[in-house]
């Protein structure tokens, strides 16, 4: 069934098709439509979930923690300040290995108040032990939402689905909505063996001494190490059933490319347009889209970018005092390629606080990188289109 829906509602449809059992959420722009639609679905019977209408995002995540620890499928959605308020509990869910799924609509953080998109809210959570999957369009949003539950429950890790404020959240696109039966076959009900259960009582989260804390941290890391392969299998299964797959990364027209853009989120779609245009002009340019930011898909990126001379990373985020986060992570990932095959990585800071990233802006970045003849990576990212 095809429907024209906004990105936020694509999340809601995914949550409903996954037969989520507990939803706890608090309103925040631009996420609010997700939970409004879920409230409607619970109300009209399309979704048999308990909706806990909490008094804060903090309690939303806390309620999801409680629910997930009790063995059910739990979901919440938020943005920006709401996500930052959850921060402590993101760690709790992460180290508690609770397969909660959360949608975050990327929104810049205050002050001053800003409701438009950038990635600083989610990237600030990169060390909380959540898988992060960034989406480019509404179909990907819906598919990823359902895949996220499968991935989360496979490895006992919480998963965050990320979509851009307004460019996706409030933008209508045709979306193929799979049938509930097909989704049920893909995603059986959650069956947690270890949960809060009066017939098999355990305590969870008790004081963990230096003697064992580090081991638990390592088990968490091992689970993250398994994510790329696990996601590959889930995505392949999805592809078999629904004819679509997304990949941890996607290479687009990178064959024989001398310069490749690295993007995430909706900037990817604009970049595809730019790449197509340049290819038509005979320029050897391509694109790598990063969907999975945590764990960072180091191996696929190495395979995709080894031997490509120049890479331009478009970062809609900033780690103050360091630079664009995707660029830094990519440089780190490519560092131990042989120098002959290691690309030069240029970083561009753009689109913060919802500023438009137009084809011209992307073209500027592409040109700058292509025109730069330096052989080594610059450690200084370029701020694009910034007024003096």
């Amino acid at each position, binding site marked *: 069934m095809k429907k024209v829906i906004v990105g936020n509602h694509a999340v809601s449809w995914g949550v409903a098709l996954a037969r989520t059992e507990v939803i706890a959420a608090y309103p925040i722009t631009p996420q609010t439509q997700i939970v409004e639609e879920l409230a409607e679905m619970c109300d009209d019977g399309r979704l048999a979930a*308990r909706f806990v209408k*909490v*008094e804060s995002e*903090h309690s939303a995540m806390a309620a999801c923690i409680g*629910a997930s*620890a009790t063995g059910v499928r739990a979901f919440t959605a938020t943005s920006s300040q709401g996500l930052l308020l959850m921060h402590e509990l993101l760690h709790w869910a992460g180290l508690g290995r609770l397969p909660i799924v959360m949608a975050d609509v990327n929104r810049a953080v205050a002050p001053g108040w800003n409701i438009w998109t950038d990635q600083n809210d989610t990237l600030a959570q990169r060390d909380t032990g959540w898988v992060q999957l960034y989406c480019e369009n509404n179909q990907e949003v819906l598919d990823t939402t359902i895949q996220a539950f499968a991935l989360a429950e496979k490895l006992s890790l919480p998963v965050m689905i990320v979509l851009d404020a307004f460019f996706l959240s409030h933008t209508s696109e045709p979306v193929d909505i799979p049938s509930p039966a097909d989704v049920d076959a893909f995603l059986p009900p959650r069956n947690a063996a270890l949960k809060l259960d*009066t017939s098999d009582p355990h305590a969870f*989260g008790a004081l963990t001494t230096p003697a064992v804390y580090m081991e638990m941290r390592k088990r968490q890391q091992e689970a993250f190490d398994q994510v790329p392969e696990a996601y590959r299998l889930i995505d392949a299964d999805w592809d078999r059933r629904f004819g679509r797959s997304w990949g941890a990364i996607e290479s687009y027209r990178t064959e024989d490319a001398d310069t490749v853009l690295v993007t995430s989120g909706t900037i990817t779609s604009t970049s595809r347009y730019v790449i197509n245009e340049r290819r038509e002009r005979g320029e050897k340019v391509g694109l790598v889209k990063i969907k999975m930011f945590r764990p960072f898909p180091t191996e696929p990126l190495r395979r995709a970018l080894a031997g490509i001379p120049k890479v331009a990373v478009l970062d809609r985020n900033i780690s103050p005092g360091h630079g664009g986060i995707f660029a830094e992570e990519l440089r780190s990932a490519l560092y131990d390629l042989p120098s002959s095959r290691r690309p030069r990585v240029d970083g561009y800071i753009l689109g913060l606080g919802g500023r438009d990233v137009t084809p011209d802006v992307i073209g500027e970045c592409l040109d700058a990188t292509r025109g730069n003849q330096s052989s080594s990576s610059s450690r200084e990212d370029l701020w694009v289109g910034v007024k003096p």
Partner: protein
Amino acid sequence: MTQIPLKEIMPHEEFLESGHLACPGCGASLSMRMVLKALGEKTVVALPACCWSIIAGPYPQSSLKLPLYHSAFETGASVASGIKAALLARGDTETTVVAWAGDGGTFDIGLQALSGAAERNEDILYVCYDNEAYMNTGIQRSSATPLGAWTTTTPGAHPEARPKKDILAILAAHRIPYAASATPAYPEDLLAKVRKAKATKGTRFLHLLAPCPPGWKTADDETIELARMAVRARIFPLLEIENGETWRITVDSPGDPIGPYLAKQGRFRHLKNEDIGAIQAQVDSRWKALQRRVAGS
């Protein structure tokens, strides 16, 4: 009046294990022991940070024979809400979900989540065991610390200068179906209230006074006596409130002078007679206000 022997009303089944890590004479551990006896095995406990996070034992131990979730400091009520939602989602309407928090996690950092849960009338039993300061971190004042008390953050010549927050009134203002105060010093009253709370749907709140020997600077064996004195001196009246409207005193507080209660506790050692008089005046005025609420309901 012939009393029913305690042993005939106290359930024999134990849900608390020996070897837990409470200090000797801990009122909080005894509170848990008695409350769980009244709740029985179909109980799940959400445990935000508090002394009990330690009492429950480190990995891989648990001092409870019940499922227990250690949660962040301010999330007792919200985690419990999620647990309850999950149980209901799986069709379990029978299990009691308990949030078990200290005074810090209730009066202070957890108040927002508690207020939210209470306002939503979540079907949970929230138990605050109140030892009147941040005891697990080493005796810092909380908004449950009583007027005049020494703590490490109200030291020397500057003891706690504000009266204790009236948490029961706050909860009552949420119009929850059941709110009550109790203490292990009056087990019969405590058990009756826990049973009533268990049988009630919606948010139930129990405020338990749990004396703390190291924090109150009292002898280990005075825990129960102190709680009894607090009740008798009207410092901690035992009452229950239904729907925020019907206020009832369940155990008579004869109004013993507060002096002997304070004198037993090192945290009040610095008090002069006029300080004690001021505290007594405050206790008296609160008692009068309570009497009015009881009479008016």
